[in-house]
């Protein structure tokens, strides 16, 4: 969308997001752990391995002489005990989205400028808040909830606001003259102009915005790239940028107040059913499905109870949800009467993404998944585990229980199981104390040195006098054990 150049914009520049988040996290940990002694602050950097550059650094690191853009080798020579974290753009982008989400409650037009900035259009909020100062006060309150390093600037062009903010300024005014003055002092290096063009310009002596403005824009028309020319023109306020506004993610949340308090969970179910019908309608319209919903029960004299209900398959029908909820509620005891219920669905899955091959084993899959959802609802998420195959020589490592669900692709990739291993494997081998005769073997397994479960055994196929075939092994110190039975 393109905007006129008379709107006032504010740019929030957050250059150290990943570092700030990690610092906040570390502080929380040390607050929790009071026994810890107060230590010297450590030098901490965020490092980009591909560029081999330090991108963010804390005050301690700065003090020692580490600089942005330095390589890891030089940085670690300066400081031997450096805390190095790898740069991950997703961390910053996620933080920006969260911040935008919070700001969305107080201001409408937000643009995320990945990976370290936000544009706010102040112009259309001024009437609502009365003045820029009041509006800014509200925005500041939201921002200051997070302990991020933040710089900001306002201007009548998005690029100007961004450029001034990137000079690490705290500068929100609406006076055009002042803004213009500030702009003139800015360095060319921090603009979005093509790096190549910046170098060219510098090498004809154009180093600041003031130098740039000395020449008419038309003089550059045949001398720099189209993109750079566009930026220059925006900086001069002669054209406007194209931006895409932030849209908060879709989520469903619905609260109903009961006419009277309900104390029995069984009685709650029909009411919840009504709410789920509304959810069903909501999902149906959007062609959506849900994997998980939150139900919060507000109790008259006690804290509210929140239950997360998961389904192994994405579903939308209220009846299906109600089945699962009924199982979960069997164990739920209310402390006092419930006066209100919230149903929330944070993430909506698209129905189209579900695979629907006519000949696939869909029906059995659906049945199994439904059963899984119900078991989990009844017994608890952590109580339901599935067998999984693991490629390893050690028999005890071959099958593992896991709460995760294996996807179809993973299943395809796994190798066929050993043919000569018993169908029934003992969880712990038992000492062999009957006479047996050896039919086949040995298979020597000496493996697993890497994960501290090293074994060294000779496995044999043996038969007891009763004709029972079993899988036995001998350890290195000549002890014999039974590990399984062939059925």
């Amino acid at each position, binding site marked *: 969308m393109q905007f006129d150049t008379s709107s006032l914009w504010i740019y929030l520049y957050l250059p150290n997001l990943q570092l700030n988040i990690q610092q906040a996290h570390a502080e929380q940990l040390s607050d929790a752990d009071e026994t810890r002694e107060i230590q010297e602050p450590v030098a901490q950097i965020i*490092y980009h*391995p591909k560029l081999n550059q330090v991108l963010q650094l804390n005050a301690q690191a700065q003090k*020692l*002489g580490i*600089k942005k853009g330095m390589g*890891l*080798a*030089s940085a*670690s*020579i*300066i*400081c*031997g005990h*450096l805390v*190095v*974290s*790898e740069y991950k753009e997703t961390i910053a982008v996620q933080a920006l989205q969260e911040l935008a989400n919070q700001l969305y409650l107080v201001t409408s037009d937000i643009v995320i400028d990945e990976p370290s900035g936000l544009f706010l259009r102040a112009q259309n909020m001024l009437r609502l808040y009365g003045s820029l100062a009041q509006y800014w006060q509200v925005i500041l309150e939201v921002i200051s909830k997070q302990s991020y390093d933040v710089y900001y600037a306002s201007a009548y062009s998005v690029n100007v606001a961004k450029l001034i903010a990137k000079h690490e300024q705290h500068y929100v005014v609406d006076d055009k003259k002042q803004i213009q003055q500030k702009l003139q002092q800015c360095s060319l290096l921090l603009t979005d102009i093509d790096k190549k063009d910046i170098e*060219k310009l510098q*090498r*004809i*002596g*154009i180093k600041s915005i003031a*130098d740039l403005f000395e*020449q008419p824009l038309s*003089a550059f028309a*045949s*001398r*720099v790239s189209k993109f750079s020319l566009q930026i220059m023109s925006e900086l001069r306020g002669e054209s406007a940028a194209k931006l895409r506004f932030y849209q908060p993610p879709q989520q469903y949340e619905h609260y109903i107040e009961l006419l009277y308090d309900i104390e029995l969970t069984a009685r709650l179910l029909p009411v919840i059913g009504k709410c789920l019908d509304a959810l069903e309608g909501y999902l149906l319209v959007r062609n959506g499905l849900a994997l998980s919903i939150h139900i919060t029960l507000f109790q008259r004299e006690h804290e509210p109870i929140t239950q997360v209900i998961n389904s192994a398959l994405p579903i939308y029908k209220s009846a299906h949800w109600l089945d699962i909820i009924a199982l979960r509620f069997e164990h739920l005891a209310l402390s006092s009467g419930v006066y209100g219920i919230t149903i929330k669905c944070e993430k909506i899955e698209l129905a189209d993404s579900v695979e629907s091959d006519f000949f696939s084993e869909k029906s059995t899959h659906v049945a199994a998944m439904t059963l899984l959802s119900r078991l989990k609802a009844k017994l608890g998420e952590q109580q339901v585990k599935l067998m999984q195959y*693991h*490629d*390893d*020589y050690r028999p005890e490592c071959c099958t593992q229980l896991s709460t995760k669900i294996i996807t179809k692709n993973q299943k395809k990739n796994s*190798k066929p199981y*050993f*043919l*000569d291993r018993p169908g029934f494997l003992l969880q712990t081998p038992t000492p062999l104390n009957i006479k047996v005769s050896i039919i*086949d073997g*040995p*298979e*020597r*397994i*000496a*493996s697993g*040195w*890497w*994960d*501290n479960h090293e074994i*060294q055994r*000779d*496995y044999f196929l043996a038969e007891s006098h009763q004709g029972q075939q079993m899988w036995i092994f001998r350890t290195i110190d000549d002890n014999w054990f039974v590990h399984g039975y062939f059925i």
Partner: protein
Amino acid sequence: MATSYKPDRHIGFAELVCQTNFSFLHGASHPQEMVRQAYFLQYKAIAITDECSMAGIVRAYAEISQNHLPIKMIVGSKFIFNGNTIVLLCPNKSAYSECCRIITNARRRANKGEYELSEWDLKSIKHCLCIWLPSGDESKDHDWGRWLIKHYFGRVWLGIKRWLTANEYEYISHCETLAEHFSLEIVATSCALMHDPNRQALQHCQHAIREGKLIKELGRDALSNQEACLRPLNKLANLYPKEWLDNSVLIAKLCTFDLSELAYQYPAEILPAKYTPSEYLRILVEEGIQKRFPHGASQGIRDIIEKELKLIHEQAYEYFFLTIYDVVQFAKAKQILYQGRGSAANSIVCYCLEITAVDPRQISVLFERFISKERNEPPDIDVDFEHERREEVIQYIYTKYGRERTAIAATVVCYRFKSALREVGKVIGVNTTDLDYFIKNVNRRDRDLSWQAQLSELGIDPDSQNGKHFIHLVEQLIGFPRHLSQHVGGFVISAGPLYEMVPIENASMQDRTVIQWDKDDLETLKLLKVDVLALGMLTAIRKSFSLIKQYYKHDYNIPFITALPDDPQVFKQIQKADTVGVFQIESRAQMSMLPRLKPTKYYDLVVQIAIVRPGPIQGDMIHPYLLRRDGKEHVEYPSPEVKKVLERTMGVPIFQEQVIQLAMVAAGFTGGEADGLRRAMSSWKKNGDLYKFKQKLTDGMTQRGYSHDYAMRLFEQICGFGEYGFPESHSASFAVLAYVSAWLKHYYPEAFYVGLLNSLPMGFYSASQLIQDAKLHHVKVLGCCVNKSNYDHSLQRLNPGNAGELGSQSTDLSIRMGLRLIKRLKADSINTVVKYRPIGGYQSIDQIRQLGLPSSCLQALASADAFSSIADNRYQARWELMDSVMELPLFAQHTTANDSYSKQPSLFDNLVEDYASTGLSIDLHPIELLSQANLLPKFYLANSLINVPHQTLVSVVGVVTGKQSPGTAAGVTFITLEDHTGNINVVVWQASAREQKKAYMNAKILQIKGILERGDGDVVHIIAGRLIDQTHLLSQLDTKTREFR
């Protein structure tokens, strides 16, 4: 190794399938370990059968022959063809030749590191024995069995391995059925990948590296147990029927081929048909005597020549000398400068054959010092050629002898600390950022802390299971071969096809092939190689010679200059350490030693070059040498024999040859042992083999009446020498080039600098430093110009028609920078500019633009101010060039720019542009500018330090041009600062550097406050106290110079 191992006497076994670590990332033991273990387990024989490779066999052979191990080694190779595995063993030399041939074919067809066998290759094998290892696939094995019976009837066996895996009996009975069906005998094998079961973890690790997975992800692809190793006979007797084991011994008995049978034959074409090699060599030497000694050789020299020729004849080295003679004759004809060096190169025979220019009259050559029968080492002659023209020599060798008969020796690239740490770390699951961090933080030069200890300081717990595995695997992997690469220039030339002697494979460089053996392997087998090396200084000297010929009309060559008497003027310059750009003695360490050593003759330079090396420095040989030479310390020799060896270096062993000779005369080493010592010295950091000689040396010396103390000191010195010990035979040749370059610098500085600048990159110094030095020597330097410069740097006469005189102080020649100096300017663009230059020069930028050069090239010319003769300044030129409209054909005739540009570059801008475009500034120096702008605190200039007394507190400022912390100087950093009057040497102690890391690491312009120290021979150093980073002043300069405008 335990000695209690007693196998059953009746069991005999030979391991016929065994892969070493030369089956890269498969085998987990060195070939030496394999044969040693096989001997320990009392195998009758062991075959080394790496996959499509003979790269490991010589090492195994050397291990057996050096230690006289009573075990037979069989040569063979494993191949996988269409999923079928066979092992070919070589019973005799013909079999070996055909095996090498098919390896060569298979390797040459595929990319480096891979092979592609064809059915035809296997069909052409007529002598090799074959062991078939069936795949287990019923129909495939039947087909392949039929094929084998058809083509290998009577010499194929079916090999069965038992690794105690699941379902093994099924596989064995399948094999037995096959054997019965095809009437084949079965032979037992372990298909060993390791010499010892404990290598399983390392094998897993290599496997994971190969697959690019984590070890734990290998799953059932990995070895399930430790059975793929050399196993004791008792165990084998339990696993296999006796008949199968006996068969292995029977096959081994059929194999009689020994690597010592490989006799080397030189190509015959270098010898005219009517002569024997001896006769022809003598004729050439006689011809050489006429040239080299025009007034006749003295009787003494005659005697030495006779002695040398006799020795050459006895050792049958004539072909070797003749081959090198042939190569250098080619170079001479093509006017490519060259210089021979190495143990045999400095003989008078080589002087007469024009292989070297070292005049025997200037160095009291004892030929045996360089080549000796007792030492039994092969003669070593390396020939250096001009680095820009070596390829011509290589191509000559290829065309003359053909690619079938010539190839370059390999270099075995091994895992070193960093690569081992990285690869092991990756497969055990350490994340890459951590690995980078470890690698960058471990200081391998720290002699107090081992890398293991440093890793634990960096956060790896050495007691944890994972930490232990990590460290242990890295330890084991270091020194494992990784791939074969190409030796710098060692050629092997043979009479017949080379691939019948050693397999040849592709190198990564196009059209290059390497043999599968490296130089040590060649030495072991007494095969000779010709080293064709590249040397930048020879290029520079040749270019200087031709400039002198052009501008001064003097035709010089290296032998002419060396034949002149030692020139005191030249040595005076060397003594002042005025040696920037002079071969070998230009490094900071060499320069600081020159005023102390004060060389006055050629042999002093030989010593100087060898003594300022890590070896002699670590062995603490410099100080005693200086004291004794200055007569401050008395020299005593424990015996006349020792005196003979050490007299020429004041009783201090400086050269590698002296150490070897000492071991022979003082400790009674035999020739073979001394040769072993020499090899151990060259690789002792890698394997620590040197310690094996300690006892022998000290015992030998004490028995011969030397004190234990003296013996220990000698051993310490040998260790210090380590791999850095420098042979006199090389130093002697280098000293010639050092002298010639110093001579040129003294008498023809303009030609000397241009020669050097046109041969870059080479040597220690950048163009900027060389030009700075030229200016200090009052040589006028002119900048790049589209109308005056050529591609190369050139000499230009200010007043044409005035020829310079030898030694005249002021010539009217100046150096004009060539356009090659400009960064990002392509050679063909430069050639276009030069080629189409009108007689009166270009008149406008547009004229140049019409040449159709890419715009980046035009920009580069503008930055270098090469348009200065036709544009006001570089901003104006650039502004004009930036306009893309002018590039359109319609506007091509439109000559005047429609808009003018008013910005003027400041001095600072010009300085920045100069550095950015050419890496140097001819007219401006940052320190000069800063000082003119009054931005610098009070400081001493480099040229004023000479008058400052010892122990004065001084402050100096300069651009940091060099920072070295050599391993020999514990923790000390040598920083070189440059201002517009010269260089300043600063010494920074570790503590100062640590405290002031910020300035130490980052400063580009550094101020040092410290104490001036004046050492022997007036060497001036500043011992740094405070380091102040003044780089920020440059930006102030920017605004300052703007204000001046």
